């Protein structure tokens, strides 16, 4: 019978351990992968005695699908600006009124009356940035300030390219590449867009999420990706250079929102207020290398971020950047169908 006693003891020990792991409060964050500073989480945990878990997603659509399915168990989600109205319309977000929170005064005026959430009744800024080009200049020495790098790749880069798996960013740059406007319904332009993407996709190596490791390591030689991740790659490998597509590139902002069926609403609100503190906002940026939209956070940020070519847009390319907005539902549907066709 000894094995039984041992097994029972082991089982009880495991269960007991699991019990003790539960802290007083909990908070479940559903955020983009590789985007949350562990130090920020640790600081929040000790300050408020809350146990935080972070789960990753890799695209706005994935997050939306998972939450839409129900029973997800998350409290906080971080959708991009152009997706926030969809979340609100679907009734998935809680009107948490961050505009009435103590630290709201720190939010940069530029990011208060935003079209996707006027007056910030649902969301607070997390980070913002642009999608651009990252190239290993040892492999390719030509002009990198163009979307041609991944849409009409030069021979050196064919089969070495990674493209971010995010529908809106990819379609945005391609529509701009053909001179169209974002949210266009012009079928002629969209047909070109579809055909170009179908033609270009075999020349890519991946549509993946591991740029900060594989770009500096040489697994990828070029990427169409978010600027912060490319900056992190450059810090590991100085041959990496960042390019602003002159045809047009998207500007995004991801915002923190509380889910309508969140179980830990109080802790989620604490977290919202917490990240609007400049010192904490600086922690967010110091990790993922994107700007954050909180006034006064610059002074807590590392020096290299204030001068980084990935973050300070050169004057000549400033005009090409455009904020991503939500398109009409029928346009959205059209874009989704194009995207699905490319995804397969």
């Amino acid at each position, binding site marked *: 019978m000894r094995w039984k006693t041992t097994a029972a003891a082991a089982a009880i020990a495991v269960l007991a351990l699991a019990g003790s792991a539960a802290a007083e409060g909990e908070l479940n964050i559903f955020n983009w992968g590789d985007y949350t500073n562990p130090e920020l989480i640790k600081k929040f945990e000790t300050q408020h005695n809350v146990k935080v878990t972070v789960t990753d997603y890799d*695209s706005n659509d994935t997050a939306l699908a*998972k939450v839409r399915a129900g029973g997800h168990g998350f409290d906080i989600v971080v959708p991009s600006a152009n997706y926030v109205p969809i979340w609100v319309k679907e009734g998935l977000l809680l009107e948490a009124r961050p505009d009435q929170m103590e630290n709201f005064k720190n939010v940069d005026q530029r990011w208060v009356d935003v079209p996707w959430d006027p007056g910030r009744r649902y969301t607070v800024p997390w980070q913002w940035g642009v999608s651009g080009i990252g190239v290993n200049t040892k492999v390719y020495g030509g002009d990198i300030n163009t979307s041609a790098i991944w849409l009409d790749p030069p021979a050196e880069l064919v*089969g070495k390219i990674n493209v971010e798996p995010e529908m809106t960013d990819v379609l945005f740059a391609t529509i701009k590449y053909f001179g169209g406007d974002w949210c266009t319904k012009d079928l002629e332009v*969209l047909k070109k867009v579809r055909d170009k993407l179908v033609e270009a996709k075999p020349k890519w*190596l991946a*549509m993946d999420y591991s740029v900060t490791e594989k770009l500096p390591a040489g697994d990828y030689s070029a990427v169409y990706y978010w600027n912060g991740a490319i900056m992190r790659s450059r810090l590991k490998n100085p041959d990496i250079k960042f390019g602003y597509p002159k045809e047009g590139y998207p500007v995004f902002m991801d915002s923190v929102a509380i889910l309508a069926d969140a179980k830990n609403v109080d802790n989620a609100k604490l977290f919202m207020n917490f990240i609007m503190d400049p010192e904490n906002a600086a922690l967010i940026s110091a990790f993922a290398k994107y700007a954050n939209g909180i006034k006064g956070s610059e002074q807590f940020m590392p020096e290299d971020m204030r001068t980084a070519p990935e973050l300070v847009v050169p004057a000549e390319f400033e005009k090409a950047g455009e904020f991503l907005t939500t398109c009409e539902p029928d346009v959205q549907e059209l874009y989704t169908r194009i995207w699905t066709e490319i995804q*397969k």
Partner: protein
Amino acid sequence: MATAAETAKHAEQEQVRRRWLLSTPALIIIFVAAIGPLFVMLAYSFMAKGDYGDVKFGTFSLDGWTSVLFQRDIFDDTLGLADAHLSILWRSLRLSFYTTVLTLIFGFPTAYFISTRPPHTREIWVFLVTIPFWTNLLIRTFAMQQVIRNEGLVNTALIWLGIIERPLQIMHTDVAILLGMVYVYLPLMVLPLYASMEKLDFRLVEAGYDLYASRLQVLWRIIIPLVKPGIIAGSILVFIPSLGAYVIPRILGGGKNMMLGNLIELQFGSGRNWPLGAAISITLMAMVMVALLVYVRNATRSGAGHG
């Protein structure tokens, strides 16, 4: 007499009743968390898709099933074959087939090698095959990635030996998925092959040599036919999980070279087309069932042959 028979019958009924009672927990658990949901999924495949995932409950639609094979062109609205789905289906079948062939090529000699060791060391060799088999699939896939990536073991070694100058691009290609699947599923080929080779009657082999057969003839005419059940069992055991592979192409394929498993996930995730995802799942299941039927028919036939 009649009463005795009645009592016996009664006892037998009681026996059967008790046996049903005993198996109830297992049956219920499997029904709730494995079989039942499959029927729900079947129902979902006949519903209209919701706008952001899910389905429009109770709205009948065949769109999920038609879009497995056909798609409406975005621009001129004509109905054409869904090449994307077909090419993923084709890739899944092709890669699974190659995986089966390659595992057979490496697995057969290995199983033969093990079965010709002295009896007391055989167990050790089998054990050596079993260890990777029980190691987490994710870990083995990850290990494979570390071997084949650009700065991985293979490329570093080849460059160091001066065979190549620039690293070979293996990661994120079909070859990477193939290598991963062969590596991961190899034990599934070796073990059943070994099981049937262990019983191989070498007197028959000896008879072959006595009749002046060459080694190749003995292998081809005597050994292979005798272990055919093992070959088929191994092939099916490798083919089925390869067809439904999800983790291996997800990690080694780079989000671009999908197999059926990834296509299913896509429909339930960012593709937001649950009925289509359900229909593809059922298609995959049907393919597996066909493979299993082949296996069962083969097993019963060879069983009868030996009997």
